[in-house]
C-alpha cells in the first residue's frame, strides 16, 4: 500500500517503505505553461532535504525542483526528457527520481491529497 504526500512547493511523493518516487503536481504543471526542457540529476547522487535535484524549463523561465526528504537517488526517469507531457501527477510515468530515504520521518509533516487540494485552492 503506497502513501502519496505533497509539499507546499508542489512536489508529490509516492512512498512505499523506505522508497519514494518524486514528481511535480498537475497544479505546478499548469502554472509553468509549455515545457521545453528537463534537466535530470545523476543516478546515485545523495540529497539532503530541500536540495534542488532537477530543473524544468518552460518557454518563459527555469524552475527548480526540490526533494522533500533526504536520501540517495536510486533511479532517474530518463524517459521523461523526451516525453515532457508526462511530467505531472502521473504515478507511473511522471516521477522524476526514485530515492532511498535516509530518514522516513522527514515525510511526516507533508500534506495529504485533501490538504494539498485545499492549499492550492487558497492560492488562486
Amino acid at each position, binding site marked *: 500500500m503506497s502513501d502519496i504526500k505533497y509539499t507546499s512547493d508542489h512536489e508529490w511523493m509516492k512512498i512505499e517503505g523506505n522508497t519514494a518516487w518524486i514528481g511535480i503536481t498537475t497544479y505546478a504543471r499548469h*502554472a509553468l*505553461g509549455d515545457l521545453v526542457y528537463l534537466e535530470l540529476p545523476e543516478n546515485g547522487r545523495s540529497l539532503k532535504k530541500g536540495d534542488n535535484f532537477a530543473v524544468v524549463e518552460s518557454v518563459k523561465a527555469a524552475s527548480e525542483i526540490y526533494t522533500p526528504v533526504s536520501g540517495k537517488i536510486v533511479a532517474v526517469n530518463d524517459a521523461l526528457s523526451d516525453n515532457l507531457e508526462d511530467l505531472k501527477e502521473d504515478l507511473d510515468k511522471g516521477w522524476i527520481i526514485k530515492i532511498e530515504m535516509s530518514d522516513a520521518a522527514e515525510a511526516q509533516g507533508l500534506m495529504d491529497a485533501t490538504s494539498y487540494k485545499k492549499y492550492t485552492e487558497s492560492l488562486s
Partner: protein
Amino acid sequence: MSLPPEKQAHPMKTTPLHAQHLALNAKMAEFAGYDMPIQYPLGVLGEHNWTREKCGVFDVSHMGQIWLEGAGAAALWEHLTPSAISKLGHGVAKYSVLTNEEGGMVDDLIITRLSEDKFFAVINAGCKDKDIGWIKSHLPDDAKLTIHDDRALIAIQGPLSEKIVRETLNIDCSNLGYMRYFEHGPHWISRLGYTGEDGFEISIPQDIAAQIWGKLLQHSDVKPVGLAARDSLRLEMGYPLYGHDIDATTSPLEADLGWIMGKDKTGYIGYDAIKNHMGGKALRKRVGVRLTDKGIAREGAEIFTLSGEKLGDLTSGGFSPTLSEAIGQGYINPHKANIGDDVLVRVRGRDIKGVLTALPFVKPKTKATPKQKSA
C-alpha cells in the same frame, strides 16, 4: 519547486484593455509597473506559432507615445540620436536610440516623421519617465513635447495582418510600405512591429481601444498574444530588449546597431565616446548564440571558448519555438571569437555546447521597404 509568482502585492498601473485581458483568462504579471497579460489560455508556444502562421494581436499600450513638434524638432532628434532623422521623408518611421554622454543608450525607440516639423515616437514602458525627463532637459524653445498617455497601442502581427485590418476595421493598408505611417480617422497606423512578421502598430484613443480590440478578436484567424510570446518572437529576430540586451552602458556599435547611425554623422550626444568604437575598435559586440546540445541558457549565462577562456555573457536567451532549439544573444569580445565559432555556455555549472551565430536567427518576413520616400 520554484514557481513564478502569481500575484503582486503592490498596486500596478493598467492599460485601457486590462478588463479584456482578465475576461480572456490571461495569466497576468507585472511588466514595467503595469499589470500585463503574459499569456492567454492558448499558451506561449501556441501564441508564438499562431503569430508566425496567421495573426496575433498584442496590447502594447504600456509603451509611451509622444510627439515632438516645432521648428527645432528635427534638430533636437539630430542631437539626441546617432541617426539622420532630419533626412526622413514624411510618413517614414525609423528605429533609433537615445544616446547618453558616455555613448550608452537611454532607450531605443521608433521615430516617425509626420510632417516637416512634427514627429511621433514610441518609447519603452520602463523608460517612459526617464526618456521624457531626458528630452525635456534638452528641449529648445522652438520645440514642444506632447505626451499621449490618453492613447492605447495595439500591435497586429503575422502574415494575415493586412487582410485582418481590412476585414475587421475596414481599413485598406495595401499601399502602406514597411516602416511607413498613415492616419485613418483616429487610427495612427504604422507598418512595423517587434516580431519580424508583416504587421501594424495602431495607436487609438483609449476610449475606443476595447471596441477595436473586440473587432480584431472576432476574426477567426486572430488570437490574443501575451508578453511571453512577444519576447520569444523578438528573440528569434535578434531584436534587442532594452534593460537586458542594451542599456546605459552599451554603445550602439557594441550592440551591432551601426546600421541605425547616420553616415559620417558627428556632434550628437555621446559621439565623442562612440567614435572610439568605430573601425572595429569596440571591445565587445552583441551576437547570437545557438545551443547545439540540449539545455536552455538564459540572461546571465557565461560564454567561454572551447579552451575555457571567457568571452562574455548572455543578455537574453530562451527556447525558439520556430527552430525548436535554444537561442540567446549576448556580448563577446570580437577580438577573441567570431561568428561561426564553437563556444561553451555555462548553465548552473554545466557547460553546454553552442555556436556563435549572426542575427537574426529566423529570416524576417516584413513587407519590402518602398524605394520611394513617402510624400
